[in-house]
């Protein structure tokens, strides 16, 4: 199996400006979107589709910068019906091929081999869907989809997924998502990078048609996918940054800088900031 295509979703109603934000990466100013596109390209992806809010195509094309020519922009159909629906909007682009999927409101930073490459390689060698996962503290469960699975013997960090639950409560997680070898209180939650076989599009299509008045989550379709075919999870050791969280963009910028060639410069700035603050006497204090 060879993976040539990638789908980036950037359509979330309230957060659609996030991929357009610019950050400085190795001295160059880039949009979040173009950083994601570059990460996809390092995994030998040939074609990229970005699902955007209707009317956002031009702004996104600008944000894609030099990559704009090789990226297709698809507007999510109205009314929007959830995350699953956003992915489904790329069905024509994907056709009957497997594809890489990344979310547009996260940034991934890795000190070793990028997670995207490892995941694509795993999916290609096993010819199946695969998702990046990371052990996540149970207090963060309300923010993620989580998987239950078993370790694949002889493969470090690889799991065969049994089921997927969207934003489980810790009660449900403890009953259904405990994975041997993972610390108590931690669960394998999605990292935001996936490789899917075309089966996923069929499942999403069926679910959207079956229940035309409700949203469809990706997790619901993935739970069904795990029942139908082999579906793997790969533990990612990198860090993901939720740009929508409080100070998310700032944290992502710092992480990016500290992981790149400007590390020393940024660290120096930070230390100066801190030192200055500590040395300044409190207001009204005596010398």
């Amino acid at each position, binding site marked *: 199996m060879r993976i040539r295509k990638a789908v980036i979703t950037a359509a979330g109603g309230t957060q659609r400006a996030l991929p357009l934000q610019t950050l400085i990466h190795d001295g160059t100013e880039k949009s979040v979107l173009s950083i994601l596109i570059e990460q996809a390209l390092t995994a030998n992806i040939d074609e990229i589709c970005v699902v955007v809010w209707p009317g956002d195509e031009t702004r996104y094309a600008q944000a894609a910068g030099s990559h704009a020519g090789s990226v297709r922009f698809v507007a999510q159909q109205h009314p929007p019906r959830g995350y699953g629906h956003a992915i489904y909007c790329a069905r024509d682009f994907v056709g009957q091929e497997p594809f890489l999927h990344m979310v547009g409101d996260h940034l991934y930073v890795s000190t070793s081999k990028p997670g995207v490459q490892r995941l694509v390689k795993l999916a290609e060698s096993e010819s199946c869907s695969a998702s990046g996962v990371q052990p996540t*503290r*149970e*207090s*963060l*469960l*309300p923010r993620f989809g989580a998987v239950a699975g078993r370790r694949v013997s002889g493969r470090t960090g690889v799991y065969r997924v049994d089921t997927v639950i969207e934003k489980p*409560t*810790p*009660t*449900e*997680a*403890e*009953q259904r998502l*405990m994975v041997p070898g993972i610390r*108590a*209180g931690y669960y394998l939650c999605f990292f935001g990078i996936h490789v899917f076989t075309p089966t996923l599009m069929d499942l999403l299509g069926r679910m959207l048609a079956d229940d035309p008045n409700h949203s469809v989550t990706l997790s619901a379709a993935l739970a069904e996918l795990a029942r139908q075919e082999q579906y793997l999870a790969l533990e990612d050791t990198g860090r993901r940054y939720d740009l929508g969280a409080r100070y998310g963009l700032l944290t992502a910028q710092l992480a990016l800088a500290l992981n790149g060639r400007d590390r020393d410069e940024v660290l120096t700035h930070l230390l100066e900031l801190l030192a200055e603050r500590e040395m300044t006497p409190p207001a009204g204090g005596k010398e």
Partner: protein
Amino acid sequence: MSQLTDVITSPDTETRNRSLDALCRAATLEELQMECDALDRFRRSSDNLYERVRALFFLYAIHRFHIPSKALGTSRALIPFAGYTNLLKRRFEEALDIFLAVQAAAGPSAALSSALAAGYRSLGFQTLADQVRRSVRSVRGNRWMFRAAHPEDAPLRIRPELLNRQAKDQLFPVLRESTPVRMDLSHSGWSDIFFLGMDYPEGARVLNISIDLSAHRGDVPKPPVEAWFRVIDQPVLRLVSVDLHCSADLGSIAEVFDFAHDYLGLLKAAVIASGIVPPGMEGATQPLTEVLSHLTGLPGHGIEIVSKVNDIPRGSRLAVSTNLLACLISLCMRATNQIRTLTGGLCEVDRRLVAARAILGEWLGGSGGGWQDSGGVWPGIKLIHGVAAREGDPEFGISRGRLLPDHQIFGPQEVSPETRRQLQESLVLVHGGMAQDVGPILEMVTEKYLLRSESEWRGRGEATLILDDLIAQLKSGDIRAIGALTERNFNGPIQTIIPWAGNLYTDTLIRRVRSEMAEDFWGFWMLGGMSGGGMGFLFAPQAKARAQERLQAIMSGAKREMEHAVPFAMEPVVYNFTVNEQGTQATLLDGNAALMPAGYYQLAVPPLLRMESRLLSPMRRLELEHFTAACHTVPEFQGMVQHVFEHLIPQSAPKAPGSQNLDALLEAHGFDRQEHEQIQADLRSGRVGLAQNRLPISSLITDVGAGDLYDATTGAAPKYHAIGKEALAAGRVAVVSFAGGVGSRWTKGAGVVKALNPFCRLGGKHRSFVEVHLAHSRRTGRLSGTSLPHVITTSYLTHDAIQSHLAAERNYDYPGSLLLSPGRSIGLRFVPMERDLRFAWEELPQQMLDEQAQKVRDSLRATLIGWARQMGEGSSYTDNVAMQCLHPVGHWYEVPNMIRNGTLLRLLQEHQSLKYLMIHNIDTVGADVDPGLLGYHIAEGAALTAEVIARQVEDRGGGLARIDGRARLIEGLALPNEEVESQLSWYNSATYWIDIDQLLTLFGLTRDSLASPEKVNAAVRALAGRLPTYITLKDVKKRWGKGQEDVLPVAQFEKLWGDMTSLAEFPCRFVAVPRKRGQQLKEPAQLDGWLRDGSAAFVESLCDWE
């Protein structure tokens, strides 16, 4: 090789189930000691929890029942104080090591065995409770709650449906949960106790039925417990109990864990057990704001949880509190998405989750029900049964069974709709009015099960067969046969295992119902742990209406006859009921229907109306608008405006119940206001108080020597018998029974006439204390050939009840003269001083409770100290029924009262040869006029001879001591420190022999001057002045609502008879008597051991019933 460790470890079921009693009966003392050594080694080394527990209970039983029954010779050891204090602190292992070391050095003794028995038993129960707790924590779905320790960790979120206001002028939706309660057709000998289910899953089976109730004729039965949940626009956790008229806005995490602060403990337990504020956060000091904003996703918002129990009082035996807890937990778990469905019923997985959390909640609240109790969550009729632990279960390898049982719901094919209908048409469900603590019974069952007592094991086997028959009859639809079986269960296995499950009241009801309803009465049905409260009676369907009517009359009549003797909490009730085929159900109320129940607004609206409207939150304002509209349109809210209006009008302070006759009572019973005010002033200024009761620390207090008392533990010398017999035959002795008390400890402050309490079945009938003592005197009279005069001293609390009871029973046909000596002294209780409460709770050695129960108790004590401050420390206690405000002023006054009220004069006039009195407490049931002891008293020429018994671990409260060179009795209250008591070998059994003339001389009186009231009064006042006044704390119950009770500590003063031995001019002797004679029955929990160790048989041997 130890035979008993073999019994514990044997793979063979028959060997494992062998009875300990049977094995020990034939063993010699040496063999028992060897077995004890082997068992103690075994329990320290075994990895298996249940083997360890069984070994602990074996050790307990050997030390409690078997070693003391073997001849222990004269070896007498003191119980080391260090061991005793370790027992109180629940450091059982350390206590046992200390006792064992002393035993190794000094040899076995009854005293040490009593201490060892207490230690082993407590350690056994602690080990079992710890295991249940571990299992509850390790159930999947519960574990995370113990990890979430910081508000940032709070991982639950409210379901979006509950945040969805349909329009700006709408309220947040309200989620309502309604849950039935459960009744059990049979619990197979209390097999739903967790320990039993986990050790013997195959024998743990309960037939459990979910029911709806109504307490009023004509009302349609509905689920008796309900709860409501909604988001509010204030950052607080608001808890409201509609039926307990109580609400609180909690703002900090610590307040959620403060269970006994108010009446909202159950709601708090539900908030914790449902994970909203998970148990891992206990001890956190943060405000709740952060948890609530995480939960709701809306800063500045909080939640409100409301509970309501519809007209069911406590003690209903229908597991109301567990089902309310389950109802609240289910509601909170639905609201936070932990349960799949927001509305409607629950699926099996979710029901089990709720049940597991309810067990957790019960543990948190310091209570503990059985595993069948949350049965109301399930629908209809079901068999709940234990399940063997399998690999993968957290219990596997630890206990034989799982913590949570399985529920097999009977469908219409198994129990037909027709049978269900017939059951409803036949069963009359009642609350008999008694509200008793079932805890001691559950402990007895556990203990007997682990020991495989022969009768218990036989009973358990029979109960299992009865349950099989019940299932068969349910399936075949024969309700009459079911009635026969439930009654057979009650009369057979239940009372074989625990005789105390029945009582005279229940027996009377059954007898009268049978005599009135004859063939139409199909059988009695005990519900839950014991009878007297919730009970069932099965009738032929055509007779049910009449039966309901008659039962109400029979119960009310029996209650009227017995209410002075038996603790009733309320007027008996007959319920209407239907089987609930849905189990717990939830509904979402939104739009205009998003309101709380009407009762909630009665509580909530008046304070809101008193506030300035600008201070109300926008939601509260909106809610008032909706409420006003609902008052015009919603039938449930009709009449609410008037209710609320009435609450708004200032009313004169409500009179405390019974306060109108308090003054009259004080007047009638000779209340000395001057003395009261003096003591009040002394109490407030700190001149008297618990700390001031004590002798000066410089007093030299030592144990008495052999020459200080006469040892009659194996019987008095024949020469004394001869003297005593002769005095008896000559009519020189009379008996005085002290019966002024209301059994504070016996009924935990409920206040019944203890003398009249039918405490035990003896000679084939329930007998009261007074009847037992009259039977002693009857027998003594018969043996000596003269009838023995018998005086019963009474108090304002007991006089009328005893008088009318004896009249109704025609003095039990007592052949001799029987006189009542009414009390002539009375006190008015005080609100306690904070320093006395702190002294009692913080400085005196305390029995620590199990960890969680202790937390609840600490929180309660803080609240009680607040109560005392608020009521005014040292003020007169008048905020209760009059009888609970008054107090008897100590048994020192009993004999002086006989002098004052003319009883002694009359006795001496009627029996001119009378020279001696034997006086005793009503609960010293082994005390009779023993000729040997009487002979000793006469031969010694003593003014007073006091009986003492060899001290065992439970004997606290002073004893015989040598104080500054004189042998005398000392009260526990007066000991300068607690350690002194452990050095005293002898405990005062409060039975005294008195030489009447020497006593009169002490008072400065003669037989002739008894007729002069002035002389008598002056004499009594003069002597009273020479004796110490003690301040004590007593628990009184204040009843309110539907069988609800508060237990409050109040202060009172007393003078005690034992202090007569401190008077230098009064020659006293002391005599050691056998324990069976001197033991006093202070708590019902003592009864089972008293019955099993042969004491009851001993008492019976001293009785002539006819």
